[in-house]
């Protein structure tokens, strides 16, 4: 029998349910099939006009619709779809009654353009200022916009729908948000506060202003044609990330609780780590020190040695800086072992799902463990000689995988890593 606690005496945290939506499709089966076939979900955006935009493609989830459209409503819908799948697989609790807290990674929320303009058209004065505008906002006609665009609105709705317990936490650690949601869930179970947590990460941010904002920071790829070729992590000709939408939901449980109810264990969250980079608001420290610290903290948290990691699910955004820094940091920690580790970036196919990425990629990492097959990094035609990773280029690779490290490095110096394993150590 496996010990119910890890080597530090903490409850072991296992995954018993997973759900996913990305630009590749809805559900684990479809996503895994297309991901391992090397298909791309990146397309030319059709949701809004593309005039004046430098970047015109994204991994938008167009097969899920919400009416009226807002990125916030889409984020909520994607989260619901992923969560329904995760809960069904897990079999935990009952409908509308999840026996634990909610940790939700979600993009910051604000009133969006269609809604702003809807109000503007009702302002009676010509050349109005903010006070005239505010007068039109009030009076109750637009009360539903308050419900929709408070920062807590998505979590409130999900907490009501799924019956999670206590105060739901909405969080943002930029591109690391999904990993942070999982980390908060792991910590709560390790503290013994709860036997189960629902960790959801969602992003439905493909709208004109979000695209413009990332574009103005020169963060996005402008290789629009063909859109499927834009995201090329670890390639010499990479030029930025591709915005994408998606959601991932995970049911985490203590090993004891999962075994007690006869749940199928899909994997173990063996370790989490986090370390802040204070170098710059959007750039990582060029020497990779914070990322190195983050990876080391994660190994230490899992009580594992670098040699025990046999696959890295990279942050791999396809920006010139990130991919290089990620290699340097990895090489610094893993040394000679680096070349033995197959590395891949799911973002080559699904794009960068930003707030959702950490959870989406944790789920792909767990599917990698389940199927013993590593999804490829597509568009890997011109390897960057400065990044001599063993990149799983273009074709999926069968491999013995026992422990995956999944990295997330984001704006604002947010670094978070997870180690996922098949069985408790």
């Amino acid at each position, binding site marked *: 029998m496996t010990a119910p606690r890890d080597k530090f005496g903490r409850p072991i945290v296992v995954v018993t349910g997973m759900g996913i939506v990305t630009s590749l499709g809805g559900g684990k089966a479809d996503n895994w099939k297309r991901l391992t076939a090397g298909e791309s979900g990146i397309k030319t955006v059709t949701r809004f006009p593309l005039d004046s935009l430098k970047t015109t493609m994204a991994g938008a989830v167009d097969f899920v619709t919400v009416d009226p459209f807002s990125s916030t409503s889409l984020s909520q819908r994607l989260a619901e779809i992923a969560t329904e799948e995760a809960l069904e697989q897990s079999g935990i609790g009952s409908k509308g009654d999840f026996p634990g807290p909610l940790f939700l990674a979600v993009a910051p929320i604000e009133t969006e353009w269609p809604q702003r303009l809807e109000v503007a058209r009702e302002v009676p004065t010509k050349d109005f*200022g903010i006070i005239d505008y505010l007068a039109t906002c009030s009076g109750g006609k637009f009360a539903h916009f308050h419900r929709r*665009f408070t920062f807590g609105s998505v979590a409130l709705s999900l907490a009501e729908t799924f019956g999670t317990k206590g105060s739901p936490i*909405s969080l*943002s650690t930029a591109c690391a948000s999904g990993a942070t949601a999982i980390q908060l869930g792991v910590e709560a179970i390790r503290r013994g506060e709860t036997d189960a947590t629902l960790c959801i990460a969602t992003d439905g941010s493909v709208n004109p202003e979000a695209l413009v904002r990332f574009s103005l920071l020169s963060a996005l790829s402008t290789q629009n044609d063909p859109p499927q070729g834009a995201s090329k992590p670890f390639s010499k000709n990479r030029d930025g990330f591709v915005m994408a939408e998606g959601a991932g939901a995970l049911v985490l449980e203590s090993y004891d609780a999962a075994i007690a109810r006869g749940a199928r264990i899909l994997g173990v969250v063996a370790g989490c780590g986090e370390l802040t980079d204070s170098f710059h*608001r959007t750039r990582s420290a060029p020497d990779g020190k914070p990322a190195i610290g983050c990876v080391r903290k994660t190994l230490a948290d899992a009580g594992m040695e670098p040699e025990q990691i046999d696959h890295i699910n990279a942050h791999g955004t396809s920006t010139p800086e990130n991919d290089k820094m990620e290699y340097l940091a990895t090489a610094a920690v893993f040394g000679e072992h680096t070349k033995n580790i197959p590395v891949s970036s799911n973002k080559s196919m699904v794009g960068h799902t930003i707030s959702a990425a950490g959870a989406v990629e944790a789920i792909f990492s767990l599917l990698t463990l389940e199927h013993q097959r590593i999804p490829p990094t597509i568009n890997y035609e011109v390897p960057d000689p400065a990044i001599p990773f063993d990149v799983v280029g273009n074709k999926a690779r069968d491999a013995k995988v026992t422990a995956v490290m999944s990295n997330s490095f984001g704006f604002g110096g947010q670094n978070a890593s997870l180690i996922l394993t098949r069985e408790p150590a």
Partner: protein
Amino acid sequence: MAEKEVWITGVGLLTSLGEGLDAHWEALGERRVNADDKRLAPYVIHPIAPVSFDAQIPKKGDQRQMETWQRIGTYAAGLALDSAGVKGNQEILSRMDMIIAAGGGERDLNVDLAIMNADAQGKLPPAVLNEKLMNELRPTLFLAQLSNLLAGNIAIVHGVCGTSRTFMGEEASSIDAARIAVARIGAGQSDIALVGAAHNGDRGDLLMLYSFGDFALKDQYASVWARRNNPGFAIGSAGAFLVMESREHAEARGAKPYARLTKVVADLAKRKAPGAVTKSLQSMWPQLGVSNDSAMLITGATGAEPATAEEREFLGQHPGLAVRATGTTFGHTMEAQFPLGLALAALSISRGALYPANDPTGLEVEKTEAPTQIVVLGVGHWQGEGMALVEAVK
């Protein structure tokens, strides 16, 4: 394993009343209020007190990269680190955890209004929105707005570099920030943490969201308890930060506590049912371990209804409590509501007195004895409730 005791060893405040603990103690003693009913008339706001940000954010380049809410927060965070005696202490800062409660930053209202006016006049074909945004948004504005970039700026300016987590969700985000920090320290997952929030009330763009729900106070300022006929919250401005650490960590470095943060509880009442907030508060109260029903209580009651009436119902069931409403003095500081309450509780305990009441309705009563327990209460204007117990260190 027994939970570790959590101490508040640093407090940083920058608000509409001024900066620093002495200035706040003095202003509270004089029942001073800095409300403005002209700047964004008919809306009443509490603007931030004049401050030179250089003292805590020495590089102008850093200040330029921030909008006001981030400057307020980064400044107050620096004050908290100073007060805890850890400012510049690389060894501690590099492993200090951070949980920030944040909304979003200031938008460029001129750009927004130009676009909205053009659209209202039929001069904004859909394709032109992109062009306007591409040409007129400042590239760095995004970073001044992103919720997690307050934490990012604190890391850059002050070097707080352990973990960094930003919670969102209006008032509840700051209750949960304190709750999770205390739980982590109590369980030994963290030794020391910086917890806080910042809010700038001098923002027309921010009033939009609250106007949709008719939550903003208009026309005339009144004490929170005297708004029955004209409910609403006056948006406030505050940076409120606390350094929390385990007792053993504080003792090992010789740090003096302001107070002990014994317990933080949070709830999500199902507010569609009338009375849900009252019930939520009733259910949380026994979890705190208040030993004396004539304790003191600092509430962030907003003045918005029906939440404030339901909270008043709860307070009416504890007539012995000496209540203070931060909303009267500071306005509603949203994400900063709860850390502001914690900061004032810790300050009062450290000064051995509760500051004077400021309430013409008589709900707040004077209390002369030195506080040993102060309850901090937070009720969100729309969702989320929480309480904390702050105690004198024994």
